[in-house]
């Protein structure tokens, strides 16, 4: 998963040359996110070698974009990213979260948006739980479990990974299809091969 998180707030699209150089090096599927607002943007990124595109703020601004992308390229390559956090006893969606000064409420309930994006043709959902993001205290299993209950496409947990047990817990408690992490891998605090071996021992079905 490659995020150019400031692309939407800065009104840019992710750098195509960079997508292409990554595609040429990598032998596993990868997904690109960042300012993809039109069919032409998506086509360009896919033709540069991305396997999937992830759309977040532009889908909130123009929900029809999801259906257009799914009809043109197939649901399998349309991932919807959702930034969500608790407010009172419910969860709500936020947009332009790549820039703290531009972050704003999208005025949508998270569970409603999860249902809507699936109806419109999303093939996968990445739920970034903002309360947990970057704090390394574990995934928001309560919120992810609530989203799982209404989500029939692959669901990827994001935000909060700080220890290998957090990965085990989110698979066990929220039945997610994948768990995304960034900082703990970038800092090499959790080496990926060791994490996979650990999860296999914890009965999680995973490719080593």
């Amino acid at each position, binding site marked *: 998963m490659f995020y150019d998180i400031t692309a939407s707030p800065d009104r840019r699209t992710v750098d195509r040359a960079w997508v292409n150089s990554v595609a040429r090096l990598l*032998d596993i599927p990868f997904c690109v996110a960042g300012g993809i607002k039109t069919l032409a943007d998506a086509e360009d990124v896919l033709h540069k*070698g991305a*396997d999937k595109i992830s759309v977040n703020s532009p889908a909130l601004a123009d929900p029809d974009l999801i259906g257009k992308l799914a009809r043109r390229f197939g649901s*399998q390559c349309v991932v919807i990213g959702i930034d969500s956090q608790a407010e009172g006893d419910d969860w709500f969606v936020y947009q332009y979260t790549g820039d703290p000064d531009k972050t704003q409420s999208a005025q949508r309930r998270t569970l409603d948006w999860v249902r809507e994006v699936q109806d419109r043709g999303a093939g*996968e959902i990445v739920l970034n739980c903002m309360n947990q993001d970057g704090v390394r205290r574990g995934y928001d299993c309560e919120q992810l479990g609530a989203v799982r209950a209404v989500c029939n496409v*692959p669901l990827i947990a994001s935000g909060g990974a700080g220890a290998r047990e957090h990965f085990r817990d989110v698979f066990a408690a929220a039945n997610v299809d994948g768990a995304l992490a960034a900082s703990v891998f970038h800092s090499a605090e959790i080496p990926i091969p060791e994490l996979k071996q650990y999860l296999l021992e914890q009965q999680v079905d995973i490719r080593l």
Partner: protein
Amino acid sequence: MTSLAIIDSGGANITSLLSAFERLDVTAELSRDAAVIRDADRVVLPGVGAAHDAMTRLREANLVDVIRGLRQPVLGVCLGMQLLCDASEEDDVDCLGIVPGVAQKLPVGDNCPVPNMGWCATRFTASHPVLRGLEQDDYFYYVHSYAVPESECTIATATHTRTFSAMLARDNFVAAQFHPERSSKAGSRILNNFLGWSP
């Protein structure tokens, strides 16, 4: 140096396939020219999208009989594997008829949404030169909604609600339902074996 043609069936995103062969030091030529395809040492038939569209494009480029007549090693990938079969239930379309079988819609099952998208453990059920050095139940990356049932040409299987042909082989044709170009080391091993295969 082996020459490799990738059949341009149009619309397919073949960047990842070209890059995978590049990493094996082979420059593939993307082509819909019958002469280039006939003369290549090896041929790959890729494919994404719908079976009907892909068959229409092959017919329009006059490639149906060209592909049927190939005697060099040919590798079908994903939809390309289904195109090598008799037919597909997707749009009820006749395919190339080189390998027996009809692609059928995958049933939706518990914890098995369709399309089947992700890494599946793959079981090798026959020996074949392109499988050399692979480990039983290795994981490969799949993205598909249709699958070909097991037959006498099946050399590998995977299961998503039901068991289907992960790989098929007949004479100089071999094919994978998964994407070897996106299946890490195991996938690269299959591509490399294909480059060295002399049926």
